[in-house]
């Protein structure tokens, strides 16, 4: 509730500011804070939520500015159209560059965007015929809607700040939507997100495009406000400033975007006016660079959440998760599949790591509706085999076929999309999510709301239903009472169960369990066996890897024994257990001990 009050207060301040501002202080500084806030909101969404740092937002700002300037000035298009072209143009270019780059990790985007910034800067300065070169373009028409011309500081002030509020609203909707959850999942564990059907590169690229759209919008507004444009505001130094604004305010918080921008812009003005007086020199006060650098370092180290985070704690704005009652929906019933048909076929699978052949010539079939277990001593290649089947690793050679579709070289998110779910040796739960939200990530693929829908808050009803479904899955494993707990705080056995529940929520045809019993107590193991039997009853085929031989013996229909990356026995549990080669594999050969 307090948060709403503060927001209201903020809006009131926004509304009355132009009336208060007279004399020395011009309204233009507030207008620029608003413009920059638009850009930084996009950057915060990109860097704080998608975890991707861009040092090229000034380029998109500039691209938007010039597109709008050129189309309105030279082509005579109405400014509103110019603005729309600016937004889409900036987004498009960002997507073009971003989509492939996101298949790389980490720092490549930073430098790619920085490079883009420099390229854009140089091009703008040199394609003089189009852009007016270093001197720029003048006479850009102000914004107009039909006959009404929008001119003057006040008009632009209100327009821009209205748009900032809209941007905050859109951003907030996005964060609380299915898309926002996917982004947070990608940040928490890309591998887990991928095996739930999420394509990280796709999401990151779209976020880059979104952030570019915001920057492009700011650029277009800028040129129509000022009436002229030149290359200097779009240099890469400004991209660095924008990042500083975001970090200062708090890179993970939308209100921080506005706060950080305001603080930095005001600070810069203060430094520009005061420093020359203090230091008695006439030199331009670019001492701000040092100050910004030190400030950035201090904030990152001492208050990593940024000013907003600190402020929110001081003002006790933490709202906490709203615990509205969620009524669980029972999960869908038994699916009917052709029992006995081959669901998964693995043929001569090999995986080499340098000089080591971790998996060699592995071939087996898993039939629909069965529980198939792979056992073998440590180092036998079991988890590697799982990683190959789920697409997390690429085989050196061999084939993997699901029903009649070759999935050998597919990405993990595509394989997940075909009905394969998995758990990991160490549970990859999204620690900062609630238990319920974790399971909802399992439902992610079955929901429909896209980026645009999410931004406008259109996914609410779908989300509510999804929450009920997720609750149903939790109830089935007996964890409904912990739905609102933070996943990372759960005891180990519960985390395992949560991961399992999440995998089931994807409604897979084939469930891969990677050492599901490891770390569990005897009672928990018994419950696990019971649960796996139930899962099989509901029509899911289970392929599991385990060390606990007795657990497997009581559960599996068929067992495959691996040693040194290749299979040494296959058959029913009883048969396998008595096989001397199997006993030798586990306990060691008699021959060796001599």
């Amino acid at each position: 509730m307090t948060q709403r009050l503060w927001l209201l207060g903020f809006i009131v301040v926004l509304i009355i500011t132009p009336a208060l501002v007279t004399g020395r202080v011009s309204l233009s500084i507030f207008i620029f804070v608003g413009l920059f806030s638009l850009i930084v909101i996009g950057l915060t969404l990109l860097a704080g939520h998608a975890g991707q740092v861009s040092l090229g937002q000034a380029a998109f700002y500039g691209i938007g500015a010039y597109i709008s300037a050129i189309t309105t000035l030279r082509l005579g298009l109405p400014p509103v159209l110019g603005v729309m072209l600016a937004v889409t143009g900036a987004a498009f270019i960002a997507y073009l560059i971003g989509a492939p780059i996101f298949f790389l990790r980490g720092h490549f985007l930073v430098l790619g965007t920085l490079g883009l910034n420099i390229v854009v800067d140089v091009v703008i300065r040199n394609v003089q015929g189009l852009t007016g070169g270093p001197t720029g373009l003048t006479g850009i028409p102000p914004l107009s809607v039909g006959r009404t011309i929008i001119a003057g500081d006040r008009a632009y002030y209100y327009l821009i700040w209205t748009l900032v509020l809209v941007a905050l609203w859109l951003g907030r909707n996005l964060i609380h939507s299915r898309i926002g959850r996917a982004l947070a999942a990608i940040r928490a564990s890309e591998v887990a997100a991928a095996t739930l059907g999420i394509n990280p590169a796709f999401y990151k690229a779209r976020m880059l495009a979104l952030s570019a759209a915001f920057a492009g919008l700011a650029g277009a507004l800028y040129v129509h406000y000022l009436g002229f444009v030149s290359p200097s505001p779009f240099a890469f130094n400004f991209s660095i400033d924008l990042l500083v604004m975001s970090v200062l305010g708090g890179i993970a918080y939308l209100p921080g975007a506005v706060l950080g921008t305001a603080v930095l812009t005001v600070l810069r003005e203060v430094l520009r006016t005061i420093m020359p007086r203090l230091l008695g020199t006439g030199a331009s006060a670019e001492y701000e660079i040092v100050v910004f650098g030190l400030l950035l370092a201090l904030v990152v180290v001492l208050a990593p959440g940024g000013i907003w985070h600190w402020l929110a704690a001081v003002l006790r704005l933490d709202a906490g998760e709203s615990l509205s009652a969620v009524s669980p929906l029972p999960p869908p019933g038994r699916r009917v599949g052709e029992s006995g048909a081959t669901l998964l076929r693995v043929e001569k699978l090999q995986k080499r790591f340098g000089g080591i052949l971790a998996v060699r010539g592995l071939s087996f079939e898993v039939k629909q509706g069965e529980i198939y277990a792979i056992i073998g001593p440590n180092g036998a290649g079991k988890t590697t085999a799982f990683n190959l089947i789920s697409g997390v690793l690429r085989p050196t050679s061999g084939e993997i076929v699901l029903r009649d579709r070759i999935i050998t070289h597919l990405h993990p998110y595509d394989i997940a999309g075909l009905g394969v779910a998995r758990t990991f040796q160490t549970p990859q739960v999204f620690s900062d999510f609630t238990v319920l939200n974790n399971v909802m990530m399992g439902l992610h693929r079955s929901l429909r709301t896209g980026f645009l829908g999410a931004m406008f808050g259109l996914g609410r009803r779908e989300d509510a239903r999804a929450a009920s479904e997720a609750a149903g899955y939790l109830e089935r494993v007996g964890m409904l009472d912990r739905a609102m707990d933070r996943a990372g705080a759960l005891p180990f056995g519960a985390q395992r169960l949560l991961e399992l529940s999440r995998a089931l929520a994807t409604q897979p045809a084939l469930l891969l369990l990677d050492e599901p019993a490891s770390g569990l107590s005897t009672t928990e193991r018994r419950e696990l066996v019971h649960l796996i039997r139930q899962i099989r009853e509901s029509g899911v085929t289970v392929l599991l890897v385990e060390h606990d031989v007795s657990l497997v013996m009581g559960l599996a229909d068929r067992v495959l024994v691996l040693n040194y990356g290749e299979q040494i026995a296959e058959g029913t549990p009883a048969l396998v257990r008595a096989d001397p080669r199997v006993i030798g594999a586990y306990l060691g050969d008699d021959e060796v001990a001599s």
Partner: protein
Amino acid sequence: MSLSQQIAQFIASGIINGTIYALLGLGLVAIHSVTRVVNVAQGEFAAFGALLAVSLMAAGLPLPVSLVAAVAAAALLGGGIHRAAIRPVRNATPLVLLIITIAVHLALKGVLLLLWGTDPYTLRPFTVGPPIRILSAVLTRQSLWVISVTAVALIVLYLFFTKTIRGKSLRACAVNPTAARLVGIRVEWMGTLAWTIAGGLGGLAGVLITPLTLATYDMGLILGLKGFVGAVVVGMASYPWTVVACILFGIVESLGTGLISSNYRDAIAFGALIVVLLWRAIATLRVGWIVSEEVAQE
């Protein structure tokens, strides 16, 4: 000049520039491989070395002393930054570490501005004399200094990394930090050493290039970025290949600038960076989804 002579000239100057980029690229690789940080402030070591050398000369010190002192100071600066800014937050996420190097970049640039202002400075060439003709290209004596000093530096580095235990232990930290600890290597100090080497290499680049172009307080970022292009092309992993890539990059930049337009110099350079990044991205797609396979081993 005939076209082929022009091209030879462009290639020659491309090699010279590429050599400078290589010094910076090597520093970036050293820092990244040992401390897993992308050092946005790498170029500032060059700017610092250059400006300090100018001041020392102006204060009356002989040229060789000024040069050596400037490079040494840059090296110390590198090590100092590691201990002051990086080591305390070594467990932070790569994003935070990157932002810290951005902060360091800003702070250093600001300090350079405070101390030296916005003016460009120049250093006289190490030896004076007429330019020398090699094959079809004409090279200034300073260019030859750049090549030969860098060559010596590279040989020293090579010997260091392959023949000395200290150098090998530095490599070991980059290859497997856990195993390095187990044999008794103090990994944190190796990080400082890597940063010190990077600082020295940066400073060396700065003093070498100043007689050819001017030194300013803000020359660092672009230089560092160009070094980064070469380093990232080869995956920030191999020292020798980084040198090759940087030199090739210098040649491409020079040819592009000479044959197309000098105004587009930086655009060509960074356009090339973007192309390389996209190419690597597509190559990665074919290899596999998890790039570091060792991590995924059972």
